[in-house]
């Protein structure tokens, strides 16, 4: 069964399909998390991730690769884990807006890239920090910066280009 069929089965309550997804994807996801988190944290996050997959399989839109969707969940769980355990944010690579299949964007030194964008307190830098490092929902970011959510989105779009350029050292074509 291909991944999309498996997710559908999981949404229908088939736990053997979840097991198959776990068999296929848990290892590489764990390795990726491990780049920035200790092993026991990785195990906790992996467990929460797949429980979240079990509960939210119905919400998979069918767009994009299943593995990438699960990675998105894993990133959010990692951020939640860090927040509730008072640990520093894991410097995981960017997900939704940056092409994670791109070779050039691997384990990234986000702090360095942020510094390249502007000094501390700079709005663009704050925006990136809150959205990508802390995984905050856009409304929250909008409230915090005191700007409308629509404005956040358009600013993000502009900043993304800057960020990608900074991350890949200008090598990636946008």
């Amino acid at each position, binding site marked *: 069964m291909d991944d999309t069929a498996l997710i559908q089965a999981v949404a229908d309550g088939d*736990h053997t399909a979840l097991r198959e997804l776990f068999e296929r994807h848990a290892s590489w996801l764990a390795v990726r998390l491990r780049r920035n988190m200790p092993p026991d944290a*990785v195990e906790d996050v992996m*467990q929460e991730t797949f*429980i979240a997959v079990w509960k939210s399989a119905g919400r998979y839109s069918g767009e994009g690769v*299943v*593995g990438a969707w699960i990675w998105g969940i894993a990133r959010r769980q990692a951020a939640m884990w860090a927040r509730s355990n008072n640990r520093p944010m894991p410097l995981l690579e960017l997900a939704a807006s940056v092409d994670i299949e791109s070779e050039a964007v691997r384990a990234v030194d986000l702090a360095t890239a942020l510094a390249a964008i502007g000094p501390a307190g700079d709005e663009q830098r704050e925006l990136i920090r809150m959205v990508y490092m802390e995984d905050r929902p856009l409304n929250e970011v909008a409230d915090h910066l005191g700007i409308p959510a629509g404005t956040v989105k358009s600013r993000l779009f502009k900043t993304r280009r800057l960020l990608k350029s900074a991350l890949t050292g200008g090598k990636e074509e946008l």
Partner: protein
Amino acid sequence: MNTAPHPDDPKHIASCLICQANARQEAGELGINLYRVWSGIAADVWSPEVGRLESWSRKLLRSPGLARALVTTPSLFLSWIGASAFVVLIGIIATRSSGTPWAHILAPIVAAAGIAYAYGPAIDPAFELSRSMAISDRMILIVRALAVFGLNTAFGMVASLLASAATGLTLSWLAPMTAVAALALAVASITQSPAIGVTVAIAVWSVVVLISQASTGDAGSAIGAALVPVYLVATICCAAIVLYVTSGRQEKRTTWG
């Protein structure tokens, strides 16, 4: 530009067994125990969370094991409770129409059946295994018997209120109900057969009722206050028998091998 798929490219790895195996090995080398992770996931996925009744029982009994044993009591399943309620209802109707307290003559039988079928080798296919558990079969029996008894007492009180507006709530029927239920349990424990226990209890109780009817002209006197001491003594004796039989003593049955 490198066009070969990277080993953790989500699209590629979904169908590449080699890359999956490599990833598994790498995860192991990094000290990640994915087997334990799966156990945690499966624990959530394979069974629902504990229900409200059980979770309340856990706090009351201070033992998750006893709580589980309680909510899985055969004679506390809805079908049993429904049947018991039905019998009591019939009794209430009969009482209202005839004046004889039928509800309270039937109540002991219902309680006896419920308790005899709460626990024991005839009910529990895994009885031998149950006898090797830290929570002893005697504890389980006591908890279940009390729960069933409590439920039947509640039925009895409802019957008492509904059956006769004149007398209102009486409790004299509690004594014979306890005695008959204890008798059923004692016989069931000795013979290891709930059916025999219930049969004997019904037989004895029927005799008592008939004798009461014959000697005083009123079957209801079987439930009367005069006999309470007799019932109490009977209950104590039967309870002692049950405790003796369930004390973990050697079974007399022969074994093969």
